[in-house]
Each structure stands twice: as C-alpha cells, then as structure tokens.
C-alpha cells in the first residue's frame, strides 16, 4: 500500500506542470502581498483561487504570468526553475492570462486583435494566417466568435472569448482567468464553464480567480484559499464544504475588532438605544426604497435595494468590491442617475439631483478614490478645502469673488482640528502624504456639518495611525447624532464600526443584521453569494 501510494505520489510529482515555491512578494511601498505561497499546478486541472480583496490572488497570478517578479521564492517546471521577465516570456513558456479589464483594441476585429499579440502584427500574410489558425482553433475548442466584426460591437462575453482565443492561439498550457464571471450574464457564465471543461479535457490547466463560492463548487477541481497574502487552504473541491471555504476566506477577526470592543465599552448603551430606536422609528435620515441602478457597462449593478440609515447610527455595507457598492454610493450622491426607485434625505427626494443640491441637503461624501474624485491634486490645500462648498455664502463674496481670508482661516481650522500636516494652505494637495490627503477630504466633508455622511472606503491604503484616526472620527460623528453610511471592502472595519450591517452581493443586500447576530462563517458565505447555510458544495 505504502509503495503504491508512494508511486502514485511520485507519478503525480512528475506530472506537475508548474510549481510556485515559497513565493513572497513585497511591493516597493513595503506592503507584503504574498507570504511564502506555494502552489502546484497539474495538467487537466481547474484550480479555484479564492480570497477577499487584497488577499494576494492577483499578485500571485501576476507573478506566474511574468508581469511581476517575485521578491523571494521560485517557479519550477519539471525541467528546472524558470524565470519570466515579461508576459511575453511567460506566454512563450505556455502561460497566458486573461485580465478582468480586457486588453483589446475596440476598432479592430477579433482576428486583428489576435494578430496584434503575435510577432509581426502588421503584415497582411500574418493576418490571413492568424485567421485561418483561429478558425481551426475555434473548431477545435468550440469557442466561436465573429472574426470580422470590430470587437467594440461585440457583447462583453464575446469580448472575453476573444481574449481567451488570443491566449489559446499562443498554444498555452496554463490559462489564468481573473474574476472572469464578474462581467458576464448567467448564460454567458454557463458558456464559459462549458468551454473551461472542454479545455480541461484537452489537458490544459486553468487557474480561476474568484470570490464567488458557488462558482468554486461548480467548476473547480481544487480550491486554494488566500488570506492576507498567506495560503490558508489547498483542498479538493469534492471534499470541501462551503462553510469551510467561507471560514478560510474570511478568517478570524484581527486587531481591529479588539479595538472595537474597547470602543464599545462606553458606547454600548448607545448601540442598544440605536437598536431600539431603529425598531421603533420609521424612515431614517436617509431612506432608500427599491433603488435600481446600472453600471457603466449597462449591466444592472444595484438591484431593488431598500434600507434606512438613522441618526446616530453607522450603517455598514460589507462585501467584495464590484458588487454594486460604487454604483450605490454614486446614486445617492448625485454622481449617477439611478434607473428607478426612491431615495430621500430628511424627506426630500435626492434622485436625479446634482451633487451641489444634495450637499445642500446635508450630505457629506467621502469618495472611494481620493485622487480621482476627492481631490484636485494640482490645486492648493485651500482650493481643495472648498471643493463642493465654494458656492456657499461663507466663501463667496460680492461679484462671486472668493473670500481669500475666510478660506485660509477655514483651512487653518481644518489643519488644526484634523491634524493635517502640510506646509501651509497654499501647498499643492499632491505634496501631501496619503494619510494627510484623506484627512483633508474627511475634514472638508465633516466641516459641512452634515446630517448624513456617506463614507466609501474611507481608510483604504492608509497607514494604521491615519486609518484609526478616521475611524475614531466616524464614531465620534455617530455619537453626535449623525447618520453614517459606511461602505468598505475591509470586513473587519465594517464589523468594528457598524451598528447594523448589510452584506452586498451582485447588487443586492443578502441580509441586513446586527453585527452580533452574524458570525464570520455566515458573513463569508453571504459575501460569496450563498444564502442557504447548510448547503454542501
């Protein structure tokens, strides 16, 4: 028996296609994205790579596909160690990756796009060859796309198939797909899965990055779970339960929750009263009913949401990013026109109004992207400090002249109150550190004296000190009777701060509950889109 298993093991080891050994990746800013991750890939295998945002899934696959060099560790093929200096080298070796954001030229046809990825893209002979090759490949793989139509005219699912074709045409053995289903309709997902199964039968290996537990169950042979850069699980799909996977993915609570306990010691009565109040009272400061909104691609992003955020409460929205949180926030702050529904602030309708009117109603918005939305980087601190309130009488004098002295005074106050470290009001915003930039935004928004604060990813990318400072500020505002809608991909943060939690998945709230009523396993399941808790994989 031992001999046969040993032989089987040996055989298996010989058969592996690629092995990543103890890969560590430290980014130049000091972030440790991967810690000694080891992954073995065999032929004819679909591996699900599961994890939350920032777990290291993308980093690992980028290293495998030659886009990033590892800091430590090595990649081994049966013929010895390999090192990819670029995606092209990885492609030559037989590893291809399909990214979430397609790398296609919209005005080119599918054939031209594929030809573009080859050695001599601009020769006509090559294009004819490519087309012939593609037709054969489509026949073999059962993957059909119109070759002579500009890809921008194709549906998203078809565009994805062009990307897959592009990689397959390079004769790869390992195909890496980054969240391939996030842009697809259910029908397209089925087609993709059928294709992946066919490819598996042909001996290809596939790495499938996802956070959706259901998909892991239906398509993969093996699941590898990453959490905070560490490989916390590597198990056969057949033997795994969804609960097990959810637990692995979300993990145990870390320091933030300990901190939250400390916080709630004194605030506990407040939490209780908020709870009672919530049960008694009707509509909150923010009232949302049957809200629907579409994303940029036209796909439904927010589906039939109804909820209330009350005074003195932090309403946390947790979930893996890209499940409609951005669209929800944009709909409520005037940056996106929802397709239907009702949303009111203190009884006044806000849907379809522009941001300026909505701010007037007492809304503060801490946007998820401080460089793109929150700040105008070449502007000075002073100019940034009045963005959105520059039309208010406080700062606007006769003939619409800006009141320089008032503005500078305002900035000085912000800098003192919110501990913004900068050389002065006329320093450009881009000269500030990330933490100080975020403090500037938060300070500006809180200084509006709002009734409700919409905070999207308020602590993303910040050092621990700044992040904690901003969390404390939000709690302080809550205790002062403001309503807060907190949207964050950081589950620990949402759990620590929120009085009520909603878990968002594909545009819907899977549940709205008190943090005490949710254990982490349930949260993991809900974030992965699984409602029935006692369901096996």
């Amino acid at each position, binding site marked *: 028996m031992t001999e046969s298993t040993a032989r089987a093991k040996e055989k298996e080891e010989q058969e592996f296609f690629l092995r990543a050994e103890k890969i560590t990746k430290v980014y130049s800013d000091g972030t440790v994205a991967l810690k000694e991750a080891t992954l073995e890939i065999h032929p004819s295998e679909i591996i699900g790579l599961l994890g939350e945002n920032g777990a290291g899934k993308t980093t690992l696959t980028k290293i495998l596909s030659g886009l990033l060099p590892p800091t430590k560790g090595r990649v081994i093929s049966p013929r010895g160690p390999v090192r990819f*200096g670029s995606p092209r080298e990885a492609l030559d070796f037989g590893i291809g990756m399909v990214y979430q954001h397609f790398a296609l030229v919209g005005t080119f046809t599918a054939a031209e796009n594929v030809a573009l990825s080859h050695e001599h893209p601009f020769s006509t002979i090559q294009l004819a060859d490519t087309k012939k090759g593609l037709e054969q490949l489509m026949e073999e793989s059962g993957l059909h796309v119109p070759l002579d139509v500009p890809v921008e005219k194709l549906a998203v699912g078809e565009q994805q198939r062009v990307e897959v074709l592009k990689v397959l045409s390079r004769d790869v053995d390992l195909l890496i797909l980054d969240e391939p289903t996030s842009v697809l309709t259910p029908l397209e997902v089925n087609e993709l899965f059928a294709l992946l199964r066919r490819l598996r039968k042909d001996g290809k290996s596939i790495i499938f990055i996802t956070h959706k537990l259901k998909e892991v169950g239906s398509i993969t042979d093996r699941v590898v779970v990453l959490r905070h850069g560490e490989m916390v699980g590597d198990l056969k799909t057949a033997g795994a339960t969804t609960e097990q996977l959810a637990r692995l993915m979300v993990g145990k609570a870390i320091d933030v929750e300990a901190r939250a306990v400390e916080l709630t010691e004194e605030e506990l009565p407040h939490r209780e009263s908020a709870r009672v109040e919530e049960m008694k009272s009707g509509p909150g400061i923010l009232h949302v009913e049957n809200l629907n909104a579409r994303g940029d691609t036209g796909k439904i992003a927010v589906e039939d949401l109804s909820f209330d955020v009350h005074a003195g409460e932090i309403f946390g929205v947790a979930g893996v990013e890209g499940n409609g949180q951005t669209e929800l926030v944009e709909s409520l*702050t005037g940056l996106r026109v929802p397709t239907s529904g009702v949303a009111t602030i203190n009884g006044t309708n806000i849907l379809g109004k522009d*941001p300026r009117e909505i*701010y007037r109603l007492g809304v503060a*918005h801490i946007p998820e992207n401080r460089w793109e939305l929150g700040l*105008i980087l070449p502007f000075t601190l002073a100019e940034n400090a009045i963005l959105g309130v520059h039309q208010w009488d406080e700062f606007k004098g006769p003939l*619409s002249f800006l009141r320089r002295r008032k503005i500078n005074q305002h900035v000085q106050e912000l800098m003192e109150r919110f501990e913004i470290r900068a050389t002065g009001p006329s320093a450009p915003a881009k000269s500030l550190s990330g933490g100080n930039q975020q403090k500037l935004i938060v300070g500006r928004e809180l200084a509006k004296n709002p009734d409700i604060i919409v905070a999207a990813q308020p602590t993303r990318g910040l050092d621990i000190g700044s992040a904690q400072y901003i969390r404390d500020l939000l709690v302080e505002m809550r205790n002062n009777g403001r309503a807060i809608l907190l949207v964050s991909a950081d589950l620990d943060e949402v759990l620590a701060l929120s009085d009520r939690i909603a878990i968002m998945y594909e545009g819907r709230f899977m549940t709205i509950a008190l943090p005490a009523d949710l254990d982490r396993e349930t949260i993991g399941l809900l974030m992965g889109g699984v409602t029935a808790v006692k369901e096996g994989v």
Partner: protein
Amino acid sequence: MSSEVTKSSSRLWRATGRTLTGLNPALESVLAGVVGLLAGALLMWIWGYDPWKAYMAMFRGAYGDSYGLASSAARGAPLILTALTFSICVRAGMFNIGAEGQLYMGAIAAVTIGYFTLPSGLHITAGIIFAMIAGAVWSLVPAILKLTRGVHEVISTIMFNWIARFLAFYMVAFILVDPMRGEKTISIPMNARFPILVRGTDLSYSLFAAVLFAIVIYFILWHTTMGYEVRASGFNPKAARYGGIKSKRTMLTSFILGGLAAGLAGATVVMGNPPTYAVISGLPQLMNVGFDGMAVAMVGRNHPIGIIIAALFFGGLTAGGRVMQFYGSNPVPLEMVRIVMGAIVLAMSIPELFRIFPAIKKQGTELFSLLRRLTSRVSHKEGSA
C-alpha cells in the same frame, strides 16, 4: 576607469534632468526663448548671415528706442488677447484654436460702426462691444456643438476658422467695401478710433484695453468662483463633478470668455492700428494673429501676466524683424523671425521630454537586462552542448 566615466556621466545626466524638471515655469519659457534664438542663429550662420549683427539690429529695432518699444507693444497688444482665448480654454481642459476666426469676425463687426455716428466715447464703446459679441457668437457654435453633439473642439474650431476667413473675404469685397477704394473696407470714423498713445508711432490706447482685459481674466480665473470652477474642471473633470461643478457650464463660460477676447483683438487691430483703420482685402493685418497667440500662450504659460510679457517679446520679434531685414550690410529675411518663433514653441517641449525621461530610461534598462539574459542563455546552451 571606464565605469568611473559612466558613473560621472550618468550623474551629470541625472543632474541635468533634475534641474530641468525642477525648473520654474518662467525659467522654462526663458530657456525656450534662448534655444529658439540660438536655433535661428545657427540657420543664419548656415546661410551666410552674421547672426550677431542681425540680432543686434533686431533688438535695437524692437527695444532700442521709444519708437521700437512702441511698435513692439503695438504688435503685442492683439497677441495678448488671442493668447488669452487659447489659455482660458486650456485652463478649462480644452484646446480651442478658434481665435483666428473669432478675431476676423471681431474685426468685421468693428468695421460696421463706420455706418453710423455716435458721440465719440459711445462710438468707440459700441465698436468694442460689437467686436466682442461677434467673437463670442463665433466661438459659441463650436462650444454648442461640443456640448450637445460631442464634436471635438479642435476639429470644429479649425473649420470655423476657414468659414470665418472666407466670410471675411466676402464681406470685405462685397458688403463693407469702401466705394472709393475697392481693396479695403470703409474706415472707422475718427472719433471711434483708439487714440494714439505715443505720437509718431502706431501704438494706441488699445494696448491698455488688452492689458486690462488680461488683468480681468486673471481675477476671474484665480479670484472668483467662476474661475475656480473653470480651473477645477480643467484639472480634473471627475473631481469637479463630485464638487458639484457643472462641466458643461464651465466649458461654455470659457469658450465665451475666449471669444470675447478674440473679438476684442479684432477691434484693437481695426480701431487702433494706423494708418488704414479698415480691413484690407486679403486680411494682411489679421492673418496669423490668432495662431501666433497660441505660441504666446504657451510661452506665457497660460497665465495672463506671463502672456503680457510673452506678447511683448513676440511683438518685439515681429517689430525688430522688420528692422533686421533692412539692416544695410546684413539683410536677413523676415521669415527668419518666424523660424525663431517656431523653434521657441518646439523648445517649450524640452523640459517635458525630461519629465518623461525616467520612463524612457526604465525601458532602456529593461531592454538591456533582457539582452543580457538572452546572451547568457545562449552561452549557457553552447556550454551544455
């Protein structure tokens, strides 16, 4: 030894790059001016002229005496305004090259005041207002096309420049033509002309109009909410929208302000430029004033105060160039001045090149390491074989 050399040369290279990237915008412009003049000198030398003599003649002609200064300023005045047209739109994040056409329309509109009489103060005001409105209306069409149909402003303003040009030709030849002299339009009446500022020169009070307008634009852009919104959407349209700014309105505002400036430029040329005080057929006094304004705007760093200085420099080049071409022993053709102008505009992009240089450098090192790996692999293979 050789590594020492490489090291020190790379250090020098880096230091140059750092100096150039950290360069003050004003210094960059000065540097560009110097490079442009040097390029012109090189060409003069190649063609057998004496650059030193030529430049001496040019600068004496431009800034050497009060006559030279006055004619430099007279040439600079309309350039200030057309440069503003370009700059305001750049500040709003657009590339409006329609100053040329708006200038023609302003000039044509100014001529029409010759058909009626008003008290002198009112008459001149009427001319200015007509011209400014005409410029603004002409800029409004590309603006509306952009806002409603998404037509890119570069395309539409270029087309509108041509429409304006031939419309102006037509107006000069058939509608506004002077019945006594067919080659020009009727003249602006005496009491509607900008008074001459320096006796015996062609510098009129129109210079004050231009400088005043530049200062007004400066205050609008940097000290009012309107300018704040324009600049905000120019730098970051998304953040501006987040800040409750309607980008369509700021686009419209900047187009209208630009049109007003270009229209006023038309008025200064027609109402403040002796001896004709009319539009001559073929538009020689107007031709290229709008396009040269773009060069002035670039050298003036799209800042009204910088533009005033840059316009005086470009005006000086034109005024001095006229002297240069008649300078006895060394008559350098006027076209050389245009070469200098072109070289200056090109030189403006040098610091930008150095700014993107780190990227170029990175590519270079990557390529180098790839080559090294390839060669080592080849030698490795040979060794094993």
